[in-house]
């Protein structure tokens, strides 16, 4: 056990010289993570970054051993991060090692370093979580759950989508807030306001293994509505006087997709069902009134519908079927899919999508009246 170092994150960037890839690995310094008696307490950083270049991933990884004293142990890799540059030029081949080698699990999350290199992202030490890789994964998980704009996908899922017909993969982005140089030392985490932080941000749309476009906020949420990956999210609604004055927390949402066919051209029906509760009211609205609630429900439906429409529009612009409509057609009408499979690239941007949203306000919280309304 003391003969190897545990890798928690693997960063892959595009290299200009000395090989095709620059690999960055984050190794844990267990004594610092655990603290207590074994710790030299705060004298060393919890993780150390090593990087090396090579034409293939494994050759680069092996080259890291020039710098590390111990064998490198991969099963606990939490995340694989791709630099944006590399992601834009295509990451289709890279997964070969990750799938072929028995030391890698299928569970590390795929993250894309937005406007940055993976190496920089991994260099940032973060408060609260001692291991940066865990911080990355947890942040994008938690924000995905409570905000509904990011989606940390496992390698396995990513590869499955990438290699299947009729669906394209998505990946969450991470970016650096502040100066990345400031984040590399432990002084960064000794402050209440760290100089530099990692932020989970954006959804990367891929096409044929290449990063096509970043989308964010409502647009990103539009995609996640469709692929049924929203745990909970806040939708802001307007009342008569104010815009965005009522917050609705979607606690349960289910989306069903159905493919229909008319004259050999497929179309998709999206049916979203949302349930949730009113979280915050900043205007005079009597939410104990059923009619008013129905108005709100209508607003939610429209809102969601707009988001979805926008998301579909973007996907069509990039011609990347991140929703997996192709697979929906395949499942619903395999015969049709066989016919259109070849021309799907041309069909998808023109495909008709019908959206239906049903929203229900289930609860209004622990009070009925707002402050303004007495």
């Amino acid at each position, binding site marked *: *056990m*003391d003969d190897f170092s*545990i890798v928690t994150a693997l960063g892959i960037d595009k290299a200009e010289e000395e090989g095709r890839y620059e690999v960055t690995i984050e190794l844990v310094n267990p004594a610092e993570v655990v603290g207590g*008696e*074994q710790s030299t307490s705060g004298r060393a950083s919890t993780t150390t970054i090593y990087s090396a270049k090579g034409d293939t991933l494994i050759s680069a990884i092996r080259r890291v051993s020039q710098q590390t004293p111990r064998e490198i142990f991969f099963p*606990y890799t*939490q995340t694989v991060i791709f630099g944006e540059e590399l992601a834009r030029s295509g990451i289709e081949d890279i997964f070969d090692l990750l799938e072929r080698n028995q030391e890698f699990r299928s569970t590390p999350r795929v993250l894309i370093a937005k406007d940055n290199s993976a190496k920089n992202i991994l260099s940032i030490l973060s408060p609260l979580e001692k291991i940066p890789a865990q911080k990355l994964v947890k942040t994008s998980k938690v924000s995905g759950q409570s905000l509904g704009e990011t989606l940390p996908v496992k390698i396995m899922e990513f590869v499955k989508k990438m290699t299947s017909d009729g669906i394209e993969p998505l990946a969450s982005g991470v970016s650096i807030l502040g100066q990345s140089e400031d984040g590399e030392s432990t002084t960064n985490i000794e402050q209440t306001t760290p100089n530099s932080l990692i932020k989970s941000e954006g959804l990367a749309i891929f096409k044929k293994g290449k990063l096509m476009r970043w989308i964010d906020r409502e647009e990103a949420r539009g995609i996640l509505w469709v692929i049924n990956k929203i745990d909970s999210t806040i939708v802001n609604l307007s009342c008569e006087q104010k815009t965005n004055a009522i917050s609705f927390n979607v606690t349960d949402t289910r989306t069903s997709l159905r493919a229909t066919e008319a004259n050999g051209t497929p179309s998709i029906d999206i049916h979203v069902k949302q349930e949730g509760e009113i979280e915050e009211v900043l205007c005079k609205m009597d939410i104990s009134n059923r009619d008013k609630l129905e108005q709100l429900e209508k607003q939610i439906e429209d809102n969601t519908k707009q988001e979805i429409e926008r998301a579909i529009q973007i996907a069509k612009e990039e011609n990347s079927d991140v929703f997996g409509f192709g697979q929906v057609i395949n499942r619903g009408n395999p015969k049709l899919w066989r016919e259109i499979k070849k021309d799907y690239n041309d069909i998808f941007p023109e495909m008709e999508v019908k959206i239906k949203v049903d929203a229900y306000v289930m609860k209004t919280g622990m009070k009925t009246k707002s402050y303004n309304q007495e």
Partner: protein
Amino acid sequence: MSFNWNPFHKKKQENHVSDKQKVSHISKDISQNLKKLLEEFEDSSEIVIRELNTGINKDIRIVSIYMDGLVDQTLVNEFIMESLMLNKSEFDKYTPKEDVFNDLRMNALTLSNIKVINDWDSLVLAILSGNTVIMIDGWNEVFNGETQGWEERSIQEPTSQTVIRGPKDSFTESLRVNVTLIRKRIKNANLRLENIEIGKVSRTNVAFMYIQGIATDELVKEVRNRLEKIETDSIIESGNIEEFIQDQTSTPFPQLINSERPDAAVGNLLEGRVVILIDGTPFVLIAPATFFQFFQSPEDYYQRADIASLLRLLRFFVFFISLFAPSIYISLTTFHQEMLPFPLLINLAAQREGVPFPAFFEALIMEITFEILREAGVRMPRAVGQAVSIVGAIVIGEAAVQAGIISPAMVIVVGITAISSFAVPSFSIGIPARILRFILMISAATAGFYGMTLLVILIIGHMNSLRSFGVPYLEPLSPFNLTAQADTFIRLPKKLEQKIIMKRDNTVKKANQLNKDGDTNG
């Protein structure tokens, strides 16, 4: 007492004697007898010979002989000497020489248990057993009066098999007391006792008890055979017998239960087993024994069924820990790190940092240290006992960790292993765990879980091959017996268990009925 205490009439004894000499008879000449006796005892200072003359002509020489210390002096004084002396005057007046023997037996001796013996060997044994022998000049038969009585430990609380709720008495070193402890719990004439004398030199009294009708005849016969076949000089403890009568010698697994609890013995008798009692030890042997029986405490039956079942399950778990904990730790840290959850791995890795030994040696050092402490704790004089706990806490604990020799997790593993090995109700089943633990550690250090699995397969195979008095060691798991599961891993409440057994009996009956009908029809 409804059983025959005196072992002299047992045929067994003749075998011993015949090895050296023919049965030698007692001479009619009392002087010759006395001379021979004194020769044999080489003027032992303990032997007491009391002579008196009686009869009309004062020509009847009566001699009583006993060993000082082995007899109850009161018994000898009141029931032998006094009756001889008081009746002496009567004898002096009326009894002719030829009637003295019968008169003495019929009218004089007030001791209740008087026997007549006529061979020399029995005579010597009687004296050595603490009986008083009364010789009369001119007769080649002597009286043997039961006057045994010596200082004995009184009945105390069991020290090695304690319970919270349940009887607090335990067997003592006296066979007679032990038999009494059992007999007073089963007031049934079918409770049988057979005596055997074992040990050419020690001539130890061994008895076995069973309930006729519950214990099978084959089992009783087998026990009797095996006991009779023992050829040895001496029997000091139940362990001596156990070694001779166990089915398989080359195994770490015990095939007989030993107990110092009368209630455990009684419980086993009622379940059809045989209890072997040995004079001179508070431990009795119970046969046959299966593996799962060692996990049953008598208290299981005194407590409510729910908690008894849970505790029984806990004991199996505890046995598992005491057997596997160090080897699992070794396997995980040397071979299967990827099986650990990430935070735990980091934690263990941090602890192992700076530890100079591989996990296997670390575990071995600690386990051996613990075994040393344990042995020292048992052998040490009580007065210095405290030193063990103080030193023990240093070598297996904080100090070892602080010195950086041992990782804290290892201390926890060894600690839980140690305490687990004491939580099994039967000390003897802890022994295989103790031995196999080290072998498992080696296999874990060689080939991880794979090696452990191979060894466990071997162990289970071996256990499956064991028999205890013909009963498969892993019964009722292998061969599987569904109804017996009611009292194996868990204990069902009595009412429920009875219902199940009744149901089974009915099914068997029905099946038999059907078979019979089928036979007659077909």
